[in-house]
């Protein structure tokens, strides 16, 4: 992942460098983005959802999906033992089949980063930490920055921050922008490298597709390396239309600036069938360039076991069952 150049705030070319010069220019830009027709967007996502992924395509997609998972535990009840178990699962998702790919990352709260880091030592699996007063983001900026810096210091490879939805919804786009820029700064390590920054919009709270498109561009302009739908902690999390819209946003951003941004739908993606639909959207909207764990992630916990059961079915020709995959 170190080969991937990080997005830098204000680094966007393509004539976008002045966009965030003022509150007014930022607002003008975000409100000048093409509108989103909800019916059309949902229809397109639904049509892509009817693609029939069989045999060799299914085998490829299952392994790809496993390698894209940010295997997540974000519970108040998390313990060192639970996190270690999750890390073991991420390293060997199917102990019975060493050919099974490893997951992309383990996603935890900041205080579990050190534990996860130690448990994953020697593997390419990343440690992602949520930060910035996840999931609500309702804390003062210094608290959010301290939260971030703490996770980075503990060894987090990736930071999943939440935006200030209150500021966004009340039209204070510059506040949201500045906060992302500040968190990005806090991702810097002493050696000059930087943790990768994923920016969570909580699309279920932004509600409208126009808002999601604006939030996507706002975050990309502010230096996000990944844009992410949801925390998994509200009623509506990732949906195919919202994710499709964000895929279109990263596509257009690269076309305009040359900078490639990743996308992470999170929450509510539980089945292989769901995952296939997302991969089809990536495939037909962005193509090969995004078809890897570098550029597309699933924020999920129960998804992995369903993928493993489907994988076993493809290998053995029989459905196994929940007792043939490990609970963590």
């Amino acid at each position, binding site marked *: 992942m170190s080969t991937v150049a990080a997005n830098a705030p204000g680094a966007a070319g393509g004539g976008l460098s002045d966009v965030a010069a003022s509150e007014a220019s930022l607002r003008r830009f975000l409100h000048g983005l093409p509108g989103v027709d909800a019916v059309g967007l949902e229809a397109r996502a639904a049509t892509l959802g009817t693609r029939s992924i069989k045999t060799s*395509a299914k085998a490829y997609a299952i392994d790809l999906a496993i390698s894209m998972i940010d295997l997540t535990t974000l519970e108040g009840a998390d313990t060192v033992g639970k996190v270690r178990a999750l890390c073991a699962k991420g390293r060997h998702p199917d102990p019975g089949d060493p050919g099974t790919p490893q997951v992309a990352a383990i996603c935890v709260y900041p205080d579990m980063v050190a534990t996860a880091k130690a448990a994953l030592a020697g593997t390419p699996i990343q440690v992602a930490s949520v930060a910035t007063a996840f999931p609500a983001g309702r804390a003062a900026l210094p608290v959010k920055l301290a939260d971030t810096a703490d996770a980075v210091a503990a060894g987090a490879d990736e930071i999943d921050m939440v935006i200030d939805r209150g500021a966004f919804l009340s039209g204070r786009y510059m506040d949201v922008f500045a906060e992302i820029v500040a968190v990005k700064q806090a991702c810097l390590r002493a050696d000059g490298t930087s943790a990768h920054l994923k920016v969570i919009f909580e699309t279920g709270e932004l509600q409208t597709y126009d808002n999601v498109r604006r939030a996507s561009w706002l975050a990309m302009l502010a230096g996000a390396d990944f844009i992410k739908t949801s925390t998994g902690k509200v009623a509506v999390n990732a949906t195919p239309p919202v994710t499709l819209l964000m895929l279109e946003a990263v596509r257009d951003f690269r076309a305009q600036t040359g900078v490639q941004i990743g996308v992470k739908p999170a929450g509510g993606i539980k089945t292989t069938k769901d995952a296939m639909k997302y991969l089809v959207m990536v495939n037909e909207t962005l193509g090969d360039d995004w078809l890897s764990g570098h550029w597309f992630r699933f924020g999920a916990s129960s998804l992995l076991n369903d993928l493993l059961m489907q994988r076993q079915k493809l290998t053995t020709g029989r459905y196994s069952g929940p007792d043939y995959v490990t609970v963590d």
Partner: protein
Amino acid sequence: MAKNKKTETTTVTEPVRTSGLFAYAPAPESPAAAGDIAGSYGHFIGGEFVDSSGSEALKTVNPATEQVLAEFAQGTDEDVDRAVKAARKAFGDWSALPGSERGKYLYRIARIIQERSRELAVLESIDNGKPIRETRDFDLPTVAAHFFYYAGWADKLDYAGFGRNPQPLGVAAQVIPWNFPLMMLAWKIAPALATGNTVVLKPAETTPLTALRFAEICQQAGLPKGVVNIVTGDGRTGAALTSHPEVNKVAFTGSTNVGRSIARQLAGSRKKLSLELGGKAANIVFDDAPIDQAVEGIVNGIFFNQGHVCCAGSRLLVQESVHDEVLDALKRRMATLRVGDPLDKNTDIGAVNSAAQLARITELTDAGEAEGAERWSPSCELPSAGYWFAPTLFTGVTQANLVAREEIFGPVLSVLTFRTPTEAVEKANNTPYGLSAGIWTEKGSRILWMANQLKAGVVWANTFNKFDPTSPFGGYKESGYGREGGRHGLEAYLDV
């Protein structure tokens, strides 16, 4: 055979490479799901399958493979006469039934269609060439919905706005095209039966199989004999049917030329006539349009059903200020269209329905190119057997170009530009047709203004090719007259 193999590979900005890492394995629907296809078919007259009085037989082929699927009878004047007499005989009892009883039969037909929808969808794909994704997700649901909808009207005709106890016309002669064989059948038969008429229907000569299968459904539903009669054959059979003196109503969907000749034939007679003919619809994209969804709408407007759609958005009118942006996005999207085996569940564009239609598309597009319009198709491999035409764009098109005026009835889009809403309206209306139009803008007031100015029977706003049984469909000018669907669709079959 003239096969279009021209696949230019002009570079699209930021192409989506979908053929690489994640290649979809074949996902074919089973042809066996279509059920048994007989070696040869006669007509369906008086509730039974009967042989033709003549010996001439036609063949229907699978346009994706050119394999013969079945032989069917070329209906003679005598066959037509027999069918009309059977319909006449059935008319008395059928029209005397209480509307609620007629409704029961229609509900039953609708339910059987739903139950047998997979079979019908596969059969339709095989006979027509359209992708299974469309027959499964669009044609069959719409067919069933149409029967359900008109079943509901059967006992409520007093409240349809045509006065108390409106009367049926009698025997309806119905001639339908090959582009949506079963759906066109539903649009014709459902309102006719709901209002108490009996029918003789002639399916198109390249796509008779689902109509003949529908005849079996009529038997399964226990529909009284003679209420629905199906006579197969080519234009000669159609002419014999529409000119039959005992027919009270003629409903035709097809080309403007044939529609014109039917209108001439019927002039001075007491037959009621409704025509649904050609189109050259404008799909108008303003600079404030939701671009991604507009591109989907453009693609759906012209490449749906291989462009074999009378209301296809075959002229893209795009505001000059977003021309390049829209065209780039459109080409990028077109590069992801999957052309091929209609029975593969991932196919977006299937086979052209017939060799004759392929020849016509080829001729018109070649003429367009010769006139100087710039032609573009994404690089795509077309199967070696069957009738195929790659999705095609013409840019630099003006109102004077052939490809902007003639109905091509294929996957061919002509791109024109405009500067102001007034110019968009002028160009959109500057056609002898007037079946449909599309408007793409985020500005609601402009949608309403445009819809009032456009001389088109259907105006879609921020969508395209949406159909619903509750909504009337029909044209202005040379696109025909009369409406199908909705309450309005009842009028064509009532003596009002």
